[in-house]
Every structure is written in structure tokens, then in C-alpha cells.
């Protein structure tokens, strides 16, 4: 069951790599939150119930409700156009995403480890590098924020892999998740949207050496 969920998680990445509209990105992020909710439920069921409830609550409330709602609110408020505007065509994106996943599977196969379910490793690292790829190839600043949220999800999957032995690290991961998201979204919310009207990375090049 957990493997099916994680494989669906990988498929969401492929879907995201060829999505055109920003709303699709947001929906995929929400779906990833729901998937993570079930993964947490199955993977960490033996954990201390209070802690488990906290983690479940974080995935469902924060990852799949609060952040997507907030992002779509930002889209409307700042009148951001609905296209994602990638630098590369979708086909290339798909090929690169596939390459990322394949390379991670190869790396995971090279590692001999009885302590780690390899599928967690593959999903986590693929998500991480996919997030970095999104950040590098999309033009709008808000897609950078979404790329960062994808990275956070990847890290969360990795922390679940060792969550049973070290619940502390899962909690630390959640702390990072909330802290960084609030900081980034907070700045975006208050300022960037107001100052830079059509929010585009090209506008963030005024700090120069000369």
C-alpha cells in the first residue's frame, strides 16, 4: 500500500513537469499533501499517538489545505497570469524529470542498506532534484515558491523513512517546513506582490557589482 502511494507521488511529479497552469501546480501540491497524510498514517502507526496526531494534522492542514489556499489567494490578489512560463518546452521537462528518477533508482540500487526502504530514498531524492529543476527553469517567482514546497515534501518523505527510529527528526522537519514556508510566503504575501507588479525573475536583477 505504502509503495502504491509513493509511486503515485512520483507520478504527480511527472504531471507537474508538463503542467501549463499555475492552478494545476497548486492542485498537485494539495494532492501531494493528501498522499503524504496516508503515507504517514501507514508508516508511523506505531508511534506515540499525540505525536502522530500532530504530524497527521500538519500534513493535512498545512500541506494540503493552508499552503494551496494561500498560494491560490496570492495568484488572485496579485493578478498573476495563469501560465507557468517555463524556459524549456514540456517535452524536455518530461525527459529531464524521467532522467532524474532513473538516476535516483540507479543510485538506490547501488546502495546496500537494510535500514532503509529504497523506495523512500528514490522518491525523496527525485522530489528534491525535481524541485530544484522547477526553480531553475520557471520564470515566475511564485513558481520558485512552489518548487520550494515540492522540495519540502521530498525532505518530508525522507524523514518518514527513518521516522520510526527517530521521531525527533520528523518533528524537526515539520518545524523547518512551517518556519521556512511562513517566512517565504510571508515576504511574498506582504511585499513582493505589491512592489514588483508582474512578478518575474528578470525584475530581480537590480543588485549589481557596478
Amino acid at each position, binding site marked *: 500500500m505504502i509503495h502504491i502511494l509513493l509511486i503515485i507521488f512520483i507520478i504527480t511529479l511527472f504531471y507537474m513537469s508538463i503542467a501549463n497552469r499555475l492552478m494545476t501546480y497548486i492542485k498537485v501540491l494539495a494532492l501531494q499533501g493528501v498522499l503524504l497524510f496516508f503515507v504517514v498514517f501507514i508508516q508511523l502507526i506505531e508511534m506515540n499517538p499525540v505525536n502522530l496526531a500532530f504530524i497527521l494534522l500538519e500534513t493535512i492542514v498545512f500541506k494540503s489545505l493552508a499552503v494551496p489556499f494561500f498560494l491560490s489567494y496570492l495568484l488572485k490578489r496579485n493578478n498573476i497570469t495563469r501560465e507557468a512560463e517555463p524556459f524549456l518546452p514540456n517535452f524536455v521537462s518530461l525527459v529531464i524529470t524521467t532522467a532524474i528518477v532513473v538516476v535516483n533508482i540507479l543510485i538506490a540500487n547501488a546502495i546496500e542498506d537494510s535500514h*532503509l526502504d529504497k523506495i523512500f530514498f528514490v522518491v525523496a531524492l527525485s522530489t528534491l532534484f525535481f524541485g530544484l529543476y522547477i526553480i531553475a527553469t520557471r520564470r515566475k517567482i511564485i513558481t520558485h515558491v512552489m518548487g520550494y514546497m515540492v522540495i519540502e515534501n521530498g525532505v518530508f518523505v525522507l524523514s518518514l523513512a527513518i521516522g520510526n527510529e527517530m521521531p525527533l527528526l520528523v518533528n524537526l522537519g515539520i518545524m523547518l517546513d512551517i518556519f521556512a514556508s511562513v517566512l517565504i510566503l510571508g515576504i511574498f504575501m506582504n511585499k513582493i506582490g505589491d512592489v514588483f507588479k508582474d512578478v518575474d525573475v528578470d525584475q530581480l536583477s537590480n543588485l549589481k557589482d557596478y
Partner: protein
Amino acid sequence: MVVIYLLGSVAVVLTLFFSRNKQFVYSLLGLFLVWQTWFTLQACLHFGTTDSVYFTFDSLGILLLITLSIVAVPAAIHSYIYIENHFEPPRSRSIYLASLILLIMAISAGYLSNHIAVTWIFTEITTLSASALIYHHRNKLALEGTWKYVFICAISITFIFIGILFLSLSLQHAGSDNLSFTNLLARSDELNPIWLRLAFLFIFTGFTAKLGLVPMFTAGIDAKDTAPAPAGALLASVLMNLGFVGIFRFYIVIANTPLLHWAQLVVGTSAFLSLFVATVYMLKVKNIKRMFAYSGIEHMGIVMLGIAAGGIGYYAAILHIILHAFVKSTLFFQYNQLYRVFQNKSITHIGNYFKYNPTGAMVLLLGFISSAAMPPSGLFVSEFLIFKSMFDAGQILLLVVVLLLLTMIIWAFGKNIFKVLFVPAEGFNDAHVVRTSPWESLSQFLLLATAVYLGLNPPPIFVQLLKESIILLPH
């Protein structure tokens, strides 16, 4: 005791954040400096003990904590001068001072922590407080700098977290779940090498955002450029040291495993690339504040070359970061007086500074000599020892290239500084130049003198602390 210190500082930060009265705000700042000094003294008195489980007053932590507490005093004074000259609204003043204190508190606790996750948490807090400082001017440039800094730092703290996860996987092979540095070191033989490699790569990459090395150095440059100079001084000196502490404490662990040579290669490559990048930017930079920031990248590159070379290089690297903190913060403290005269950051519009403020010009000249590591600068001693360690390690080809790059850096730095000091600026009308009191440069002279003294004639206790901080590394 650390908990008391943290609680006290947070109380000061919160009170500052909500108070607007001028006298009250400044007296709170003074109170915090006393509090910081008291904490430093207590830390020295309890040398070698572990406090509140997660903090140890070891020699490296103590050395850097004392450095921080020394630099914090002029930072507070210059912040006062800065705010009074800019007629800040009370709210902006309170936020600035509160963030400054939060930054100093987080850096202090980060130095002393003996657990990698705790170091990580305090690194996160420095990102938060630094971003408030960078955003101080609330204009478009400040926003751009803040956004870049926050985004890159968020990615880098995520990287550190991934590194910590890999490290815990590596540690599970040793049958333990305690991530303190002592425990890691005790079990360094049993750590799984594959996970340890991945952990080192991610943690190293993550901390380079604070330390200012390739690949994550860019955010720091924009931050030091847009933050007010007294805050920029902290970002360019003691905050970089926090990045160093994070890498160095983990490096000690990995140096005691068979992966030492691999780790040296990683650190050395990153250090060399940083020096190269610093050279390229130094040659073309025209913004004087960014030039100081790039010079910091150069120095951190040299420090990490010393770490990679090993031997006497370890000792010299720690000496270098301490002296660099004094010298680089001096240059940033002086910057505001320079700006008050010329109202410009660009070197083309600054010139003949000796005519307008001879004392400040002396600071710049001496700061340049110190930063370029010419005798009698203390940095001369540490750089000399680092080059010696590279020579001993047989990296002669690398050393030759590094020396060539350094020559170019000194040429570019010197060209710009002498332009600022002696060549009149084009089209600068000096009818309304503000007189600067020479007393404002006093703290800079003291800091530079400290750097010279510690480099040329280090007191025995200082040498002993330096030696103790590297005692766990293989020789």
C-alpha cells in the same frame, strides 16, 4: 545557564520590539551588551563543562564567542550612530535593534551547541533575524536582497536537514541515535561510509550559504550589500564564523574516518573555486560594499584551503577566521562614514577621502593592509602558515595558482582603495560635506590593533585555546 541567557535575550528582544521610547530602547541595547558580556564571562569560568545538555563551552566555541562579544560592542555603537543620522521612525528603529540582538543571541548559541540539530536550529534563527536586518530600508533593492537571501538560505537549511537525515541513517549502522558531535566522534569507526559521504556533501553545501563559499555564496553578498553597514559587519564576520563552526565540527568527525582524503578533496575544491570566483568578481566590482563582501569570500576560501591541507593549516585556519572577523567588521563599520561624505556606493563617485576625513581614511588604509595580509597585519601570520601547510601537503601547483589569484585580488583591492583615498571623484561637489568626528573611528583602530596583536604576539592562553580546538583532528 545557556537557557537563562537565551530566555533573558528573548525577553530583551520582545520588549524592544514593542517599545518605542528612544531612551528606553537604547538602554535596553546597553543592557543586552552587559548581558552578553556577563554570559561570555560565565562561559569562560565554566570552561569545558556541558550546560543544558546541548551546549558545551569548548575552546572553539569560547574563542568565537569572545570574538563575537568584542565585535558586538562597536556594532551596537555604530548602529546607534547610524540610526541617529538617518532619523529612523521609532518602529523601524525597534525592529532593527531587536533583530540585531536576536542575531547576536542565535550566533552565540550556535557556536556553543554540541548537537548538530541544535546548531541547525540556531542557523535557522540567524536567517530570520538577518532577513529583518536586510529589509531595513524597505525599498525595492532591499526587498530583492531579502528575497534572494531568504530563498537561498531556506534551500540551504533544507540541505543541512537532509544531511542530518543521512547522518542519522549512517549512525543507525552504529546502533545509536544520539546526534551529538561527541557521540558521532566516539562511533566514527562504525558509521556507514556511503550515508556519511552524502551527509557531508549536503551539510557542507548547506553551510556554505552562511560561510560564503561556492556554491551558495551569492545570497550573502547581496545581504551584506543591502543590510545597513553595522549589521552587514556582523553578517560579514561573526555569522560567517557560524557557518565555519557548523562545517568544522562535522569535519572533525569525518576526519577521523577513512573518508578524510575524500573530504579534503571536497573542501579543497570548493575553497579553490571560491578563491577563483572572488578574484573574478574583485576585478570587476565597482560597489565598495560588495567589494568588501567578495574579499570575505576570498578569505573563507583561504581558510578552507588550510583545513583541506591539514597539519599546521588547522591551527592557522582558526586563527584566520578570528582575525578576519576583526578586520572585515572594521571595514564595514568605516563604510557608513564614507557613505555620509559621498552619498554613493560606487567607487567611480568616491575619491580623495583623505581630504574629507583623514582619520577615517587611515582606517581604510590600515584595513586594506590588514585585509590584504601584508605585514604587520595579523592575517599575514595565518595566511603564511596556511601556505606553509599547503607546501607541506605537497600541493605546490595549487599553491602557485592560489598565490597568482591572491596577487590579482590584492591588485584589484588596492587599486580601488587607493582610488578612494587619493584620486578626486569626478563631478563631486564638496561644498556640503559633513564633518565626521574622529572619535567614530576609535573602535575601528582598536579592532585592527587587536588583530595585529593577536597575530604577531599571541598571548599563551590564546595559543593554547587554538591548539585545543584542533586537538581532535588527526595530525
